[in-house]
């Protein structure tokens, strides 16, 4: 099986002419099968841009990104991916079940699969029994839970989650952490960005740090454990970014 995520020399710019801004510069990393990798950085550091390039939503100026060996623009590469966008609204005129039917069908699930999976994923994200409710009645936190449900609907091998805990209350974050732990134990590959560094610390076996569009540090599981003994990931991250350490 190919490597789930490969990013090689990725450079992405926005704007034209004098207003051109490099959002990501020469970023390279891989995520292997079964890994749980946290992607952290300050606001505007380039996390979402990297993830969008990975999903084929934006096009690199240089370098390439691959999902399971397929270039990111190739729909084939997205066959085994569940994705949660940083910010997304879900069609307010739809019911939760209808939305999951739409996404599940596009992922290739049959009607029988959908009948089986929809109640399961809604239960997993704490929205059990809300299949018939219109999304316009959903709060921000419920929308985020639904976003996680749509990422899980087709039982993807790779989960790419952008700002996964955004909009969730402490209870929601606790449930999410438990869910991600469960998925990790089940052997899923998880790549996620988050500002909740305690969450990253508890879940990941590797952390990639990005600052001003460049990778500034990569912390392995052993380093994470060593860091955990001395200081929190948060203080390590702050000292790394402020100290300007580079790989």
């Amino acid at each position, binding site marked *: 099986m190919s490597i789930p995520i490969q990013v090689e020399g990725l450079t992405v710019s926005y704007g034209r002419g004098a207003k051109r801004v490099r959002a990501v510069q020469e970023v390279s990393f891989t995520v292997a099968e079964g890994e749980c990798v946290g992607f952290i950085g300050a606001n505007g550091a380039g996390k979402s841009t990297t993830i*969008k390039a990975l*999903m*084929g*939503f*934006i*096009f690199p100026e240089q370098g390439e990104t691959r999902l399971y060996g397929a270039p990111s623009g190739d*729909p*084939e590469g*997205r*066959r085994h*991916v*569940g*994705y*949660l*966008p940083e*910010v*997304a*609204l*879900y*069609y307010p*005129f*739809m019911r939760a079940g*209808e939305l999951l*039917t*739409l*996404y599940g*069908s*596009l*992922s*290739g699930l049959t009607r029988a699969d959908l009948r089986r999976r929809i109640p399961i994923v809604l239960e997993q994200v704490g929205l059990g029994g809300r299949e018939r409710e219109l999304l316009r009645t959903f709060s921000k936190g419920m929308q985020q839970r639904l*976003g996680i449900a*749509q*990422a899980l609907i087709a039982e993807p091998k790779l989960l790419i989650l952008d700002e996964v805990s955004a909009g969730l209350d402490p209870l929601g974050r606790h449930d999410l952490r438990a869910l991600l732990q469960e998925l990790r134990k089940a052997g899923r590959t998880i790549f996620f960005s988050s500002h909740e560094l305690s969450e990253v610390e508890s879940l990941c076996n590797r952390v990639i740090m990005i600052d001003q569009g460049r990778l500034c540090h990569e912390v392995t599981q052993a380093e994470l454990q060593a860091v955990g003994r001395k200081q929190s990931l948060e203080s390590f991250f702050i000292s790394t970014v402020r100290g300007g350490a580079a790989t």
Partner: protein
Amino acid sequence: MKRGRALWVIARSVMLEAIRRKEIYLLVAACLLLIGLATSVDFFGLGGLVKFYRETALRLMGTFTALAVVLLAVRQLPREFEQRTIYPLLARPLPRGLFVLGKGLGVLGAALFCYALFMLIYVPGMWYLEGDLAWRLLGQHIYLQVLQMGLLTSGAFLLSLLFSPDAALTLGLLLYFASGLIGQVALTLYELTNAAGRLLLYTATYALPQFVLFDLSGKVLHSEIWSPLSWPVMAALTGYAMVYSGLYGWGAYALFRRRPL
């Protein structure tokens, strides 16, 4: 994933939106009110006004359906970008071309639903007035209207990717309502202008579809003197619509294919 199923689920979501939102019902209600007013003329004792009813109803149905198509089509893609609903959709193994095609088919489906509602009133109205439905001509008129809806949909998609949603809506409606006028002006100016002007007129005439070709309401109205169109003419009109829909649709796809999201 089967392509047909993907197209269907995307189209279904567009139709669901059109049906659950209020705009389409407002259009249908406004149109039916106007048709109803036309019908009420007979209640005032002014018999023999079947033609008046037929003309009013067919024209209004065509206009309101075109309005529904443009309103629905111009907002499909911009709203997906604006509300970021496009990300979870395109995160699936779904090619962008299939996504645009599914959206287009959804708009067409919603427009057909709208037109079917109009017909549900028009046909009983004609029976009530004991008028001749002129089935064959009416059938051809409906078929050409469907082709026109497809053409309008692809044109509106292209405009929505080139301009802001408001500008695309204005331009779409302007081109639809003014296409006949533009054709007439082109004919008048042709004899008066120089070679460069004629080239410009030719370009305008061929770049813009002639929507008037898809409107047989005048022939349905005077069905006693008009015969149904021959099959070669219908085939030519079908080809004409296909070429323009294809060109506009391809243009929309070409713009969308490389658009950063």
